[in-house]
């Protein structure tokens, strides 16, 4: 009870802090925030990414939306574990599982089976390179094949890499945005390469135009 309450309070404060630092606003470009089960897939540059998506979702949708996160980072003890497990009710993936693949993804498919929406980063890890988007991991395809009925909503998180660059631990306040695109569904005859290509293109299409100096 007390844990639930403090988790709710921490969740509200984290969302409030994200708003103060990033003024984050959603662009619902390809769909509307509907109360249906979805998998939000997004580019991943910072530990704050899932917080931004969670923050721009309407309250009713937040409760049913769980981030998929790494067990080794968000699943431990202490504050990080509290935030991962209690506050955001993360679906924790064991990246270092002895038999990676199907097993690591099973918890994710179970969570979808239990009715949760997901925040999922298909790059598999934070992108700290100069590349715009890392190659997407095939877990996304296996998830889509396991549940072809669930909408996959591409989302582009802009500017978060500047808020908290690699190696820095304090965020600098800069405006961020989350742009949601048109939902994807796995087509019956679509193979892995075609689907993964479509997901990648859908993500990149949402990226705001690059401003050079």
């Amino acid at each position: 009870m007390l844990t639930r309450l403090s988790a709710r309070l921490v969740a509200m404060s984290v969302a409030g802090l994200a708003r103060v630092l990033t003024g984050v606003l959603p662009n619902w470009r390809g769909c509307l925030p509907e109360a249906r089960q979805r998998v939000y897939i997004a580019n991943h540059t910072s530990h704050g990414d899932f917080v931004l998506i969670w923050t721009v979702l309407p309250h009713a949708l937040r409760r049913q939306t769980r981030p998929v996160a790494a067990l080794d980072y968000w699943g431990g003890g202490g504050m990080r574990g509290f935030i991962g497990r209690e506050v955001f009710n993360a679906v924790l993936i064991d990246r270092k599982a002895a038999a990676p693949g199907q097993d690591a993804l099973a918890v994710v498919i179970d969570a979808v089976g239990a009715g949760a929406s997901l925040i999922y980063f298909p790059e598999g890890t934070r992108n700290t390179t100069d590349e715009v988007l890392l190659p997407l991991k095939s877990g996304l395809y296996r998830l889509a094949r396991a549940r072809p009925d669930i909408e996959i909503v591409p989302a582009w998180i802009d500017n978060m890499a500047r808020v908290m660059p690699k190696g820095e631990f304090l965020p600098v306040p800069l405006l961020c945005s989350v742009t949601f695109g048109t939902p994807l569904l796995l087509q019956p005859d679509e193979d892995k390469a075609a689907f993964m290509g479509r997901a990648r293109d859908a993500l990149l299409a949402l990226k705001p135009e690059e401003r050079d100096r």
Partner: protein
Amino acid sequence: MSLPQEAITLFLGLAGVLVAATAVGQALKRRAGCAQSSTVENLNARVFAWWVMVALIGVAFLVGKAGVILLFAFASFAALREFITLTYTRRGDHWALMLAFFVGIPVQYYLVWIEWYGLYSIFIPVYGFLILPIVAVVRGDTTHFLSRIASLQWGLMICVFCVSHIPALLTLDIPGFEGKKLLLVAFLVTVVQGSDVLQYVFGKLFGRRKVAPALSPSKTWEGLVGGVASATVLGAGLWWLTPFSPAQAAAMALVTCLMGFFGGLVLSAIKRDRGVKDWGRMIEGHGGMLDRLDSVIFAAPIFFHLTRFWYVP
């Protein structure tokens, strides 16, 4: 600090203007019917945002000096966040950026709070100017170094130093004006924002010839002349808020409105260069914080120093 009678009169007047503007906006909306006009929609969004902004300033005035300082410190934060978002930064700027946001803003407004004129007037142009490039250079990234550091310094000057001169008006000791310092803030903000609104109204009604087509598609000669002239008259009519005579108030209003107009042009030029129409989306109908503050930013330090030069012994 209790609210002077003049401030209550002014806020009642502003509320009256907003009631009228709301009525006109709703009437236009009804006349437009189903045919959605983006101009009318934007007008109503702007009017609604004005209600919120006048209410916020009203609350700040009720709190007094601390309220006004906090309000503009927050405005500086939002403005600097918009400004830096649109400039080119690199990882090596992280410490300098942290310093600008989390030391620059609080210290500047603290200095205004303790009324240390000798330091708040040089803290950013001298200490910030020299310390920031030092903090950035130790990170060793020389790519576009000058333009990176110059942008940050410019951002601090525009968004923090200049904006802080609005609450700094509360630190001026003008003989015979004790207990009424809030009114100077009210005068400056009302006249400059009034000039923006009047330029918009005259421009929409009579605007034909563009005054700076390369910088702003919406600014016209008709809007400029009509807006600045009427805002000067407005300033003269508000002389009772100030230690100025009506003629002096008109002159002050004219100078601040012209500064405000050119301030808008300067910040438009930066937006154009960065390829955006608005600084942000914070204020519905207006754009970002900087879109609303651009004119006051350029007017405030000049108004502050003219007042200080002539009226503070």
